[in-house]
């Protein structure tokens, strides 16, 4: 099967005062079009570097990053990004915040059409009625919902999320997983989700990639063979619990390697 996102043999080291600090050491990621790839690994292992590679914000020392058949050498314009910190422009309303990418990518777009598109997404994530509020009037979970809308408002072909639900409480997080599942069914993006929550990776992912400790290489790939219309309950079924056990073991191995290095 052809990969929409194809990262192979990527090595990268950051320059520091104490010499080069290798963060990626043999990274391979392949995601077919429209699929959802969750990436887990010990903290500080270079997961965030992966997001910058796919979005074209930086280039690796060696190896190739191919998206949609083309090597990524600069920002691609057709990506959406969401971070753990749902940065909002405090002087704009929620609706205006969601419309921001359209102003960059499609400056000629009619305001009515842009508003309709943004409103449609806000409605899908349950923020209808909040469109004219300022970000400071919303809770953390609501801000993150708005941040998701902003990430996909311009119909990106790739959505990159860096621990987007990491700062939320457990129940809010599970709510947002379901929102994410529904958005996925409605919108045609290929997704890479960086997370350190194994349950999240199994609930949302079509595959889960385990990275080793720093410098990170692709240690293990798990195919998540669960139906697309999952509910939270599925996480308590034996087949999902088995997967969680496998991932837990892999993380242990990843941390072990981390221990040897230091």
């Amino acid at each position: 099967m052809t990969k929409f996102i194809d990262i192979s043999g990527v090595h990268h080291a950051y320059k520091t005062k104490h010499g080069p600090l290798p963060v990626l050491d043999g990274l391979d990621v392949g995601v077919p079009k429209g699929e959802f790839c969750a990436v887990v690994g010990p903290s500080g292992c270079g997961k965030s570097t992966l997001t910058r590679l796919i979005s074209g914000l930086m280039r690796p020392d060696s190896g190739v990053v191919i998206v949609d058949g083309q090597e990524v050498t600069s920002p691609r314009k057709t990506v959406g990004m969401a971070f753990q910190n749902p940065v909002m422009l405090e002087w704009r309303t929620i609706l205006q915040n969601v419309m921001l990418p359209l102003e960059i990518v499609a400056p000629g777009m009619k305001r009515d059409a842009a508003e309709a598109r943004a409103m449609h997404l806000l409605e899908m994530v349950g923020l209808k009625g909040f469109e004219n509020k300022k970000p400071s009037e919303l809770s953390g979970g609501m801000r993150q919902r708005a941040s998701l809308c902003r990430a996909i408002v311009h119909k990106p072909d790739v959505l990159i999320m860096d621990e987007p639900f990491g700062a939320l409480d457990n129940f809010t997080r599970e709510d947002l997983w379901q929102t994410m599942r529904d958005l996925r069914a409605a919108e045609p993006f290929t997704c890479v989700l960086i997370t350190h929550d194994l349950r999240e990776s199994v609930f949302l992912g079509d595959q889960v990639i385990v990275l080793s400790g720093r410098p990170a290489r692709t240690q293990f790939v798990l195919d998540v063979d669960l139906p697309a219309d999952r509910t939270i309950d599925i996480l308590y079924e034996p087949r999902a619990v088995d997967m969680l056990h496998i991932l837990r073991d892999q993380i242990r191995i990843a941390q072990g390697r981390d221990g040897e290095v230091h």
Partner: protein
Amino acid sequence: MENAQKIVVPLLAILAFLGLWEFIVWVNGWPNYVMASPSDLPAAYARFWNLFLVMGWQTLWRTVLGLLIAVLFGTMLGMVMGFSKLARDALYPLLVGFNAIPKATLVPVIALLFIGQHDFNTVLMAFLISFFPIAVSVGIGLSTLEPEYRDILRALGASRFTIFRKIALPKTLPEFFGALKVAVTLAFIGTNLVEIVSPHGRGLGALFKSGETNGDYPLMFAVLIALAFLGIVLYYAVVALEKIFAGWAERPAS
């Protein structure tokens, strides 16, 4: 009710201050050639009202012009320092050093350089004394921008200028207005410095000087109060602008 409080309470504070002043002068039995009291002032205003209007206007337009130049120059300098670490490292010591120089020492220098250019000299001093806080605040505002803001737009292929216009500029406005409030009063000091120190000066500073020359204490204090009044007016003009352009930064009181 809330608005009444905003006006009435500060007015009461001012009246209390004037009352205290009057009381201290009265208790000590100072005649008005030693220390003027507030009750001396209305007579001074009544006698020289036309001078106050003409001189007040001169002081005001010079201060505002100097301030406008300070805003333009300070913002540009702040942008350079905010975006370039090299420029920041290079310029900070120079700026801090320049700011530490008492500006009174520059008056004779400027007066010699631009002999007779009185308006120009005054505006220049108002500018020199007030651009520093603006440059520093804009620089800090830009250099502390969270990287996520930048990444979201950069990943969409936005240019540096677009990122500046859409995010960095509006995000810096609260800091900018904070600095502008400081700069307003500084600019007044700069204007009056030149008006008082340089010969054949104009503006309220010169009026103060002539009061001093003639031993007219009520006139001198009347000038000081007029300066304070202009300062308050200009300060609240900035506050009004801040409400319009950076009102979002103000959290509703709870």
